[in-house]
């Protein structure tokens, strides 16, 4: 199955986003142009309120742009769909379903028409095993920890075999140790699946560690892409080794300089 990876797998062309609120209109994004290569891991970083999540919601199709076009695998993005799976910040698991049922709901939706029940069950089990949760399949979301919930969220998204995985601050609500553990696991999983991913984050270390490219956004209103930093660190990446790596620290300081020198945000 060797084929050339598409250069412009996900495309954003002159995308503007204006929200109509009760207080009037609000220009959230202005002139966003971005090409994402197939199999690439992209991070979008910026100060809070700069519209990072809006970019993600546009790619997922939960929002429609005011102007401009979005494409995924050559097709225009018109509405949400399982080929662009989302890992939500607050996991968004359905509390009345077990972990297994939460994943199965997604699997059934995507593969239910073409596969037998046992195949669907196997897919669900495999997805939960991938995130290391085989022991907690019959638990409800409120019976497991925050980190485990997020794992189920990732399992649910990956089980759909999406073309693009969208992660909206996936580890934002977790403590530092759990976060580090999940980042390492996400790296392994992404290496295995080779799936294209777009992650919104406000964590500089997370962005540098996980990404191939970091998209840095200017401050809103009318936020746009300030710079794109290519992270040319070799994979697999090791957290501890990188901590003393000069190039890693250089990249890290590049992001920090962008965020705190060129586009510093005044404390509210």
């Amino acid at each position, binding site marked *: 199955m060797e084929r050339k990876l598409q250069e412009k797998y996900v495309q954003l062309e002159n995308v503007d986003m204006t929200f109509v609120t009760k207080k009037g209109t609000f220009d959230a994004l202005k002139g966003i142009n971005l090409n994402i290569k197939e199999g690439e891991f992209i991070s979008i970083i910026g100060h809070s309120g700069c519209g990072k999540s809006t970019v993600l919601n546009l790619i997922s199709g939960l929002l429609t742009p005011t102007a401009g076009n979005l494409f995924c695998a050559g097709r225009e993005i018109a509405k949400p769909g399982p080929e662009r799976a989302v890992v939500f910040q607050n996991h968004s698991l*359905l*509390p009345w379903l077990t972990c297994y049922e939460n994943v199965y709901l997604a699997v059934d939706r995507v593969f239910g028409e073409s596969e037998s029940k046992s195949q669907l069950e196997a897919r669900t089990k495999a997805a939960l095993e991938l995130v290391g949760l085989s022991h907690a399949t019959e638990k409800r979301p409120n019976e497991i920890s925050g980190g485990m919930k997020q794992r189920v969220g990732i399992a649910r998204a990956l089980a759909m075999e999406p073309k693009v995985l969208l992660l909206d601050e996936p580890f934002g609500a977790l403590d530092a140790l759990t976060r580090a553990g999940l980042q390492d696991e996400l790296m392994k999983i992404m290496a295995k699946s080779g799936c294209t991913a777009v992650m919104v984050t406000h964590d500089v270390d997370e962005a540098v560690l996980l990404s191939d490219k970091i998209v840095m956004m200017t401050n809103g209103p009318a936020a746009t892409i300030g710079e794109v930093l290519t992270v040319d660190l070799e994979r697999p990446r090791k957290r501890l080794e990188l901590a003393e790596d000069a190039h890693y620290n250089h990249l890290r300081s590049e992001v920090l300089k962008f965020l705190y020198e060129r586009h510093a945000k005044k404390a509210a």
Partner: protein
Amino acid sequence: MTALTIKNIATLKGGIAHAPGDTPTSSPESMDSSMDNHVSEKVTLVAANTDNMAQISTVASTKKPNVALQMLRQFFAWVIPPIMGILLMLAVWSLISYQSQGLPGPIATFKAATILFSDPFYINNPNDVGIGWNILNSLQRVATGFGMAALVGIPLGFIIGRYEFMSRMTAPIISLLKPVSPLAWLPIGLLVFKAANPAAIWVIFISAIWPMIINTAVGVSKVPQDYMNVAKVLNLSEWKIVTKILFPYVLPYMMTGVRLSIGVAWLVIVAAEMLTGGVGIGFWVWDEWNNLNVEHIIIAIVIVGVVGLLLEQGLTLLAKRFSYE
């Protein structure tokens, strides 16, 4: 200085006294007991003002029966207030009945009740049946009216909650009709159905439907956007959205509506039956009033109260059973 050591020893004793045998719960009862200990020990210690290592062991040994006593005390603290309330009510009732001419006292009423309930299911003629048949007839009317209200109201609530347009369309109608007294609908029912029994059921239907519509709609409109986003990303069908997301989320709201509805229905049936006649607890009350059998009216009040309570409690249990939390 002395105060400090006394306090230390007292807490030490509390700790030791708790250690063997009895469970270290933090229930009010054990808190109370340790507080008591504190106070009493402090007093003796202040009085003696020497080191009292010997006393520690005596406290430990006398502790166990004390706990049983505390539990007994707590049980009584739990049952005494309601019993006192009922006794007080009976006393006031006796006092009033003693003063007034027609009102029978508790004892006379109780005697009448034993006779009444000795044969609850007799049928002498269509207008003279046992109390059991009266209750069952009323319950059947409530069940029919309430059941139809649920069949119409709950799906309607879903639609209204799901679609903003429907919500805005029905809002003025619901706000206008909801506060109308249920009995005002009775003449309409009599006119349309040309019979008393369906009219009574119609009144139950129309009064029981509002809480179910409104609570279901509120529940649906409160479904977190996160869950709906999941539905959108997964491209779930409308059927799956309803069964996997809306219904489980809305169920607690819906059950609140159902509980309120059954309460209203049972309230209304007595009044409706008084007007429509036939076999039923409401008309029975009216009948006994015409017979000037006041004992039976009081018994009916108690029956209506008890049945209403049972209906609500039953539904509360059902709601708990179906709740996902």
